[in-house]
Structure formats: C-alpha cells, structure tokens
C-alpha cells in the first residue's frame, strides 16, 4: 500500500493550531453569557480554583457560581459531545466508506430519542449515581437499537455494511414513528420532549460531565488506536483482509466504540445534528483523508464547533435560548457548502 505522507509538518501545525484555537474558544465561551462578567474577573475566578494560586476573591459569590457551576460544566460538556460526535462520524464514514454516514446512521439517535421520550412519560422520577431516568433510558435505547440493527444485519460471521445501513434506516424509521405517536399523546410534557429532541446544553452540570467523560475518553482512545486499520480498510475489505487486518473484528470494535460514545453524548443533551457529518468532512477537505490525522483533528474541530454553536445558542437571543441543533445546522451547512465549492476537485474517498 504505497501511501506517502508529505505533509507531516503541516499536520503537526494543524494539531497545534487547533489546540490553541480550542483553548481560546473555551476561554472566550467562559467569559460570554447572558450575564455580563468582565473578562479579567472570569480569568481570576478560574485561576483561583487552581492549586498553588492565591487570589483573594473580590468578586460576588453569584459571579463565582455562574462561572464555575453554570458555564464551566456547560463548556466542557459541549466540547466533549462535539468531540464524541465528530470522531464517531469520522469512524462511521470510514467504516461504511460512505460520505453520507453520520453517528446516527444505524439507529443510535432514534433509539435514544425513544428511550428519552419514554423517560419523559414515566409517571415517576428516579435519580441514581447522578443520572436521571431520562438520560439513562436514552442511553439504553441507543445501545439496544444498535444491537438489534447489528443482529439483524449479521450474516454468519460477517457483517455486510449495506445490510447494516438498511437495517439501521428501517429500524430508525420505526422508532421515529413510535416517538411521533408518543409526542402527540404526551399532552403537557410535549414542550420538554421537543426541546430535548432538538438538543440543549442549558442544564449541564458537573455530574453529567463526570458520567460522559470516561466514555468519551475511552472510546476516542480505542478509535485512535485503530486509525491505521481504518486507512487500510478504505481499500476493498477483501484486500484489507489479505493485508493482515482482521476486518470483521476491527469493524465490530470500531462500531462498538463509536456507538458507545455517541450514545453517552446524546443521552444527556439530545440528538444534536450536523456535527457528526460536517466536522469530519471539513477536516478531510482541509487536511486530507488519512485517518491518523483525520480522527484527532476531528476531535478538536468537533469540540471547537460545538462550544461555539452553544455560545451562539445561549447568547444570540438571551435570555431565550435557541436549540443548539438549529445553530449547528445554520452555521454548519453553509460552511460545508463553502468548503465544497473551494475544493471542488477534491475526491472524498
């Protein structure tokens, strides 16, 4: 497989640049909100939390609450979910060798939505280990849905990708229709359900960050380890097999990892669209299709994109909040079209 990588330096710069951009965007998102807090105060509050830094608090305790208990978990969760959806999208696109694949292709989103709606309609409320019943059922719904799709699509020991996509689309449509039915019969709870489905970070808190973080970190690390295999699998699956890749095993591991992080991400904040399909494409158009760079760059870009989108969602019409799915679509689609125009001759796969 004669792959040459003439752009090592450019890629190193890209990773460095995105890391700096990520830091800048995160800091900026911390200082902007529906309540005006001076930039320096924000920095001082944040710094005062670090060990070995001694700053006498000159700010109000409400300022501290806003920054540390409302904005910080929100920015971190947005970054985590953005990173998770972007790398999951890149993985699915690579696995299916299909530019239209996104993290929701094989039933994750519809399964999560069904679980969440059932959670909304339960007559009781339950909390355990910092997780409410809605995210828990959304998570279970997503995993069960993908498990059904997987078992439907399996033929003997192999997993034909086309069958997997078709089963995912069909089952997703079935879940979708049940969700629609439940929504129209949900009465007073309709409002909350629709807001969940459109996605929001408005109620992010530390306990959610603590639950999502391990899934995303473990999932991302696993996917990154298989970046090389994913490159080889862009050839025919048969050829990849001949080149020593255990194709079926790799497929299964990557599917499981991508599904798990997607499910963890959407179960708290709702099914946010566009991030998972647009970010990897944008990265691919700018820095090329090598998965060893595509994947980490997608992680960073996804985090940056969703932190910015959430910033717009909470400030544009403050104190009213715009569902973040609206922002990701409005910002994402034109940006993507621009990239497509600029690199017209670029080949996707």
């Amino acid at each position, binding site marked *: 497989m004669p792959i040459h990588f003439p752009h090592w330096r450019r890629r190193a710069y890209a990773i460095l640049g995105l890391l700096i951009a990520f830091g800048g965007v995160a800091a900026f998102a911390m200082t902007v909100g529906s*309540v005006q807090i001076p930039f320096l105060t924000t920095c001082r509050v944040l710094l005062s939390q670090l060990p070995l830094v001694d700053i006498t608090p000159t700010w109000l305790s409400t300022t501290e*609450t806003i920054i540390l208990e409302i904005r910080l978990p929100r920015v971190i969760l947005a970054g985590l979910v953005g990173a998770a959806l972007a790398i999951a999208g890149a993985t699915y696109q690579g696995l299916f060798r299909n530019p239209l694949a996104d993290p929701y292709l094989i039933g994750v989103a519809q399964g999560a939505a069904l679980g969440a709606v059932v959670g909304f309609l339960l007559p009781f409320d339950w909390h355990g280990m910092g997780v409410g019943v809605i995210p828990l059922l959304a998570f279970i719904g997503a995993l069960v849905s993908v498990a059904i799709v997987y078992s439907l699509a399996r033929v003997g020991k192999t997993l034909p990708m086309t069958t997997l996509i078709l089963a995912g689309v069909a089952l997703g449509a079935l879940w979708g229709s049940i969700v629609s039915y439940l929504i*129209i019969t949900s009465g007073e709870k309709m409002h909350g359900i629709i*807001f969940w489905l459109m996605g929001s970070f*408005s109620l992010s808190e530390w306990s959610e960050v603590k639950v999502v973080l391990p899934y995303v970190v473990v999932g991302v690390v696993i996917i990154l380890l298989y970046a090389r295999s994913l490159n080889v699998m862009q050839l025919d699956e048969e050829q990849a097999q001949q080149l020593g890749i255990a194709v079926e095993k790799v497929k299964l591991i990557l599917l499981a990892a991508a599904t798990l992080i997607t499910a963890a991400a959407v179960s708290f904040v709702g099914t946010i669209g566009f991030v998972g399909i647009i970010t990897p494409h944008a990265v691919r158009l700018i820095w090329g299709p090598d998965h060893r760079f595509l994947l980490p760059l997608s992680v960073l870009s996804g985090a940056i994109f969703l932190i910015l989108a959430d910033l717009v969602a909470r400030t544009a019409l*403050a*104190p009213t909040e715009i569902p973040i799915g609206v922002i990701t679509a409005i910002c994402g689609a034109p940006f993507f079209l621009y990239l497509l125009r600029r690199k017209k001759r670029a080949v996707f796969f």
Partner: protein
Amino acid sequence: MRLVTLGIFVVLLSLFAACAPPAEEVVSSTMEVADQLGRVVKLDKIPERIISLSPSNTEILFALGLADKVVGVTEYCDYPEAAKTIDKIGGFSTVDLERVVALSPDLVLATEIHEARIIPKLKAMGLTVFALDPKTLGEVLESIALVGEVTGKGEEASQLVAEMRSRIKVVTDKTDNMPEAQRPRVFYITWHDPLMTPGAETRHNELIRMAGGTNIARDLSGYAAISLEAVIEANPQVIIAGVGMGSGEDLTFRYVETKPRLKSVDACINHKVYKIDVDLAGRPGPRITDALEQLAEFIHPELFKKD
C-alpha cells in the same frame, strides 16, 4: 466551594443582624412550609428578592402587593402591565440559570414543570425554591394562600382568597344542583390547527362544569386534539374560543366563524360563539374567577347576564 459561599453568606447575615435594629422581619424565626409538590421549604426570613418562573406566579405576586419585591419574571409574564418591565429570566420551561443566579433572589417561585430538571439545579446553587402545582380551582386558592404565607402577606392572601370564594359562590349557588338536562353542551377551543380542546382533569373542564355547562370533550384526557367530526357529532350549544394565544390574535374565534362545516351545529345557528382571553382560564392565578364569571355568562346568560 459551596461551603465557602455559605460561610460568607452566614457571616454577612450575622453582621447584618447585629447592626440592624431588631425589626419585625428579622425577629420572625425560621419557617418551614410544604409546597404543592410536597417539598418542605425552609425560609429564614421574609423574602425581599423574588423571582417568578411562570406567568400565573407573577400574577399572584402582584395581586398580593409584592410588585416591588419581584426582581425577575419570564418572557411570558405580561400581566399586569408593570410585570413587562421587570428583568426577564428566560422562558417558561427554558429558564436561563445565569440570569436567575445573577439576580441573587432569596425566593424562586416555580411550578410543576420545573420539578424534574430546573428545581434540582436551582437548589444545588443554594437557592430557595417554592413550587406551586394547582390542578383544581380549590388548589389555585390554596396556592395563593401559600404564597401569602411564605412572603409575609398572609393577611392580604386570605383577603384575596375570601373575595374569590365569594365570587365563586355567586356562580355555584345557581349551578350546583342544576340537572344535566339544563346544562348546555359546551365546546371550548384552545387552538384551531390542530383543533385542541381541554378534556377531563383540566381546569377548563372544571370551570365549565361549575359555570353550569357540560364539556363535550370531558371523556378525552388532558389537553387533547379533537376531530371536527367529533365536534359536529356532539353538536355543542355553546362554543367558547380562547383567544390571544401565540400572536395574540383571535384566530380560534375566526376559525369557528368561517368554517362552513361548523355552520350546522346549534352554537353557530343560535349565534352562541364567544371569545374569552385564553390566559384567564389558562393561568392558575387570581384571574381564574374572572374566567368562571365569563363562562357562566356565556353558558347561562339568563342567569348571569350583567346589565
């Protein structure tokens, strides 16, 4: 960190208590009141900075003369007029937590829809939250009394409740023992596209009953979509259109007026189609008695028509 915040708060509070002359409000000791979600809420003093998370809560606070203590309301709080000028803290179900915290309220008046997600967050930030969840007319009166109790306006509240009770009694005295045959069939329309109507277990259903009518949708549950066919079959004698929802126009009323297929029902033949401000019956607040009186007048003009 929360402990530190609490510590600062306690120190400030004790300083304040030490400096201030022993005013009546400071003397009143800790109060524990159960709210309508069954939560026991502890209050250390009479609240001075109140945030309302619903339009009906705002109406109750204003009716009890607490206008100058309300520091934050929702974007939908448009009654009374003065409520519009108060700082906004977001929508009804979409509360902007930053704004709430920044206004440093000592009481947040919430409702049942905030129970699952908003109230736990507000509590975690050390705020005192009191929730109302009035499902029936009786519980609306109870909620007003509760707000009076926790805001130190107990007297005003019992006065308001007594006044509302006597207005309700004027209506129910004439309708309580009314036989079914004398109760006109009423269709209350809350939205026209899709056609929505309040069914069983709604305040509207209760009010229609109290006003001496029979709700044609009493077998549906909650606020439900109803087919035009079902409405025509039930042949309502009175149609009441809740107007002012969304854009604030009388779309529902115009719908009934212009729909040719509704021409055959008794209400349209006898010109018994009325409009009512959707907020009167829709908001469980002090104006609920206005809703009852208007409904009674629409359904039984012979008994309640004012000259």
